[in-house]
Each structure stands twice: as structure tokens, then as C-alpha cells.
């Protein structure tokens, strides 16, 4: 009888082995919100993966269209405003959706780049109001939240990763249960990366001056505008990566903390370490990582605590 049991155990073991077959993921690559978006789905419990992928693409395209037409549903708009306000409050007002007319004056978004006159910038800053706002700084992060909450997430065992133009949304973990591995671009040499984050069930967003800029008369102007001056922020940071549960908040925080610079960013993190974590890369190449993250790099970095 014992032997029979052993034999049966062998069979059970075999059955569990074959359940481990890692399948090729369902992937989608599409263009929305001025950027290339990719989606990789390993599993969505209780749903067809291809169908889920199509749903996400449709969801994001619809949101992009609604934002462009200033036609976002009240629920979406309320939710985006809620996260924009939270990011505003957490960054001493440095992430500000009412900065839209100033950003437009520089040509970011329209592509008609120019350096506005100082008095023009002052006038635009003074006349900011709630009727001319731009959710562009938070929309991609919000789109990833929608994809995760409505389609991809919600159940244990779900496994997918979305990259919405640098807004990475990691749902669950890799199909083998290990964390997702997300590389952080080196802002000083954008051909290479400067380390790898291990992420499970969270969003990660990077803001850096190298991502969108133009050069005029030998000066490079980037797209992250300091609301205090109207000019591109010069805080000594080359990029800020924010890891947190909510993509929309990560999106807004990465912009606002970039404007504030390393010292203030770390101060704010210390007061809110339950909300987010940071990878800060300075213009001199110095790398600082907050202690809530699992980060590996072949170069030296400082761990902030």
C-alpha cells in the first residue's frame, strides 16, 4: 500500500511539473497620447488574454481622445484632478496642471519650439486659472491605472506589464512569481541604463530633462517647467523615478520632485515613505535610491533612509 502511495505521489509531482509551462505572452504595441505604448500580458484570471489586450488598447485610446477633445467623463476628470491635487500638495505646488499656457508658449506639445520673452512668461504665470488646464502630465499614468484596475489587475495570479511611454505599470509579478525587472535609463548616456528595479504590483515613472527638449543659440531648453519662474527647472537633477501604487500620482510626483531637486525631494519622501520611493540621478551622475526599493546596479549608489 505504501508503495502504491509513493507511485501515486510521483504521478502527482509530474502533473504539477507540467503546469509550469511558461507560455508566450500576448503583446500589443500601439500609439496614443503622443507616445508608443506596449502591453505584455502573461495571464488575466477568468478572461481571454487577447480580448483583455484589445480592451486595454480601446480604453487608452478612448481616454486619449476624450482628453484631447476636453470631453473626459466627469468620473475620469474628477479622478485625474484628485491625483493632480495630491501631487500638487506633495510637491510644494511644483506639479501644477494650470501651467498649461506656459508649457504651450515654449512649444512643448505643439512642437513649435521658441524661447518666450520674460515678460510674456510672467504674464502667463500670473493669469493661470482652472479653465485652462492640461492633464498631459498625469494622463499616461492615469491610463495605466485604468488598465490595471478595470482589466489587468484585481486578482492574484494576474501577470502583466504595461509601458505607456515611460509609465510602467507592473501588475502582479512575472509568471514564475519573481518580481518584474525594470531598467532605469541613464539620463547622461541615454543609450544605456544605470540599474534595475525589482517591482511587484506597482507603477514606476521617470521624468528627465533629456526626454523632450530643444536647442536654440547653443542653449538646451527642456520640457519640465518650474512654476516659480516659467523657465525649464534647473535643480541639479537629471532624472527622477517615482515608484508608487498609483500611476497617476507617480506621474505627477516625478515632475514636481524633479523641479524641487534632490534635497527637498528626499525630505518629502521621508515624510511620505509609505506612499512612494525614489531613484534620483543628478547631473553629475550621482545615484541615490530610497531604502524601500529593491535596486541593483553595477555602479556605486547611495541608499537614502
Amino acid at each position, binding site marked *: *500500500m505504501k*508503495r*502504491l502511495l*509513493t*507511485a*501515486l505521489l*510521483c*504521478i502527482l509531482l*509530474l502533473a504539477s*511539473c*507540467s503546469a509550469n*509551462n*511558461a*507560455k*508566450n505572452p500576448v503583446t500589443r504595441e500601439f500609439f496614443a497620447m503622443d507616445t508608443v505604448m*506596449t502591453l*505584455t500580458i502573461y495571464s488575466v484570471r477568468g478572461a481571454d488574454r487577447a480580448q483583455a489586450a484589445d480592451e486595454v488598447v480601446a480604453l487608452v485610446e478612448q481616454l486619449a481622445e476624450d482628453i484631447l477633445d476636453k470631453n473626459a467623463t466627469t468620473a475620469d476628470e474628477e479622478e485625474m484632478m484628485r491625483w493632480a491635487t495630491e501631487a500638487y500638495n506633495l510637491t510644494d505646488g511644483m506639479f501644477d496642471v494650470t501651467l498649461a499656457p506656459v508649457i504651450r508658449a515654449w512649444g512643448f506639445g505643439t512642437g513649435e519650439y521658441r524661447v518666450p520673452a520674460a515678460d510674456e512668461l510672467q504674464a502667463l504665470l500670473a493669469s493661470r486659472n482652472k479653465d485652462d488646464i492640461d492633464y498631459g502630465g498625469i494622463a499616461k499614468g492615469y491610463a495605466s491605472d485604468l488598465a490595471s484596475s478595470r482589466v489587468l489587475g484585481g486578482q492574484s495570479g494576474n501577470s502583466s*506589464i504595461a*509601458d505607456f*511611454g*515611460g509609465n*510602467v505599470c*507592473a501588475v502582479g509579478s*512575472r509568471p*514564475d512569481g*519573481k518580481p*518584474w*525587472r*525594470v*531598467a*532605469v*535609463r541613464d539620463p547622461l548616456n541615454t543609450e544605456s*541604463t544605470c540599474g*534595475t528595479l525589482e517591482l511587484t504590483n506597482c507603477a*514606476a*515613472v*521617470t521624468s*528627465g530633462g533629456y*526626454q523632450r527638449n530643444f536647442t536654440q543659440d547653443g542653449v538646451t531648453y527642456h520640457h519640465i517647467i518650474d512654476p516659480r519662474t516659467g523657465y525649464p527647472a534647473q535643480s541639479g537633477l537629471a532624472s527622477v*523615478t517615482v515608484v508608487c501604487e498609483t500611476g497617476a500620482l507617480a506621474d505627477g510626483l516625478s515632475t514636481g520632485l524633479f523641479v524641487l531637486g534632490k534635497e527637498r525631494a528626499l525630505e518629502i519622501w521621508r515624510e511620505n515613505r509609505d506612499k512612494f520611493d525614489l531613484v534620483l540621478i543628478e547631473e553629475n551622475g550621482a545615484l541615490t535610491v530610497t531604502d524601500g526599493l529593491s535596486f541593483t546596479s553595477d555602479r556605486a549608489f547611495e541608499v537614502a533612509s
Partner: protein
Amino acid sequence: MKKRKHTLEIIIAAVFLISSATALVIHLNRESRGVIGVYRDGVLLSTFTLDGIEPLDYEVVGENGEMNLVHIDSDGARMLLANCPDKLCVLHGKLAGNEPIICLPNRVVVKWLSAAELSAETASRTDATLP
């Protein structure tokens, strides 16, 4: 009678054990046949899990104009085209047995990944890059 019953039990157990051992060997073999790796200059360029794969042609291009086109489908892989002088890789035919397809002039290798190679690849691969 008691002894005979014991023998029968041993036979049943033996049959179970042998069949599960055989199944295990077959299973392990299939696992190692599940993923194909394409290398150039010893660097793993890409991996393909054959389970449920759509047939595709994967192009490998070198700095000096070397070109190899690898066809991959659920049965395995073969070198469809190569601009090397000898074309031995194309003549190799399907990736079968443990013999990798090697294009020596272009330094391209197509082979089944062993479990160890596969886990090393998985551990070091990144899933996304923040811009």
C-alpha cells in the same frame, strides 16, 4: 497465498514507478526543447518559447553587413537565408537533436536553451525600461 499477494503488489508498484520515471524523462526532454535561443558573437540576442508561437522570421544583422534569417515555428527553427559564403547553416536544415545550427562565418548560433541557460537568461532579462 500471502507471499503471492505481496509479489503482485511489488509488480504493480514497479510498473507505476517505471511508467512515471519514463514520463518524467519524456517530460524533462520536452522542457529542454521548449525554448530556442539565437546568439551572435556569443551574445544571446533573443529567445523564443515554442508553445503556441506564431511562425516568424527573425533577422540577425551584423556590423559588416552579415545577415541571417531564422525561421521559427512551433516545430522548431531553421536557417532560411544567410549571406555567408558556405551556406552550411542553411543546409543544416531543421534544428533537431542537440546539434545547434551554426553559421561560422557570421558567428550566429541557433540552439535549444538548457534549463540552466534559460534560468540565467530569465534572471538577467529586464521586462521594461523607464525612458
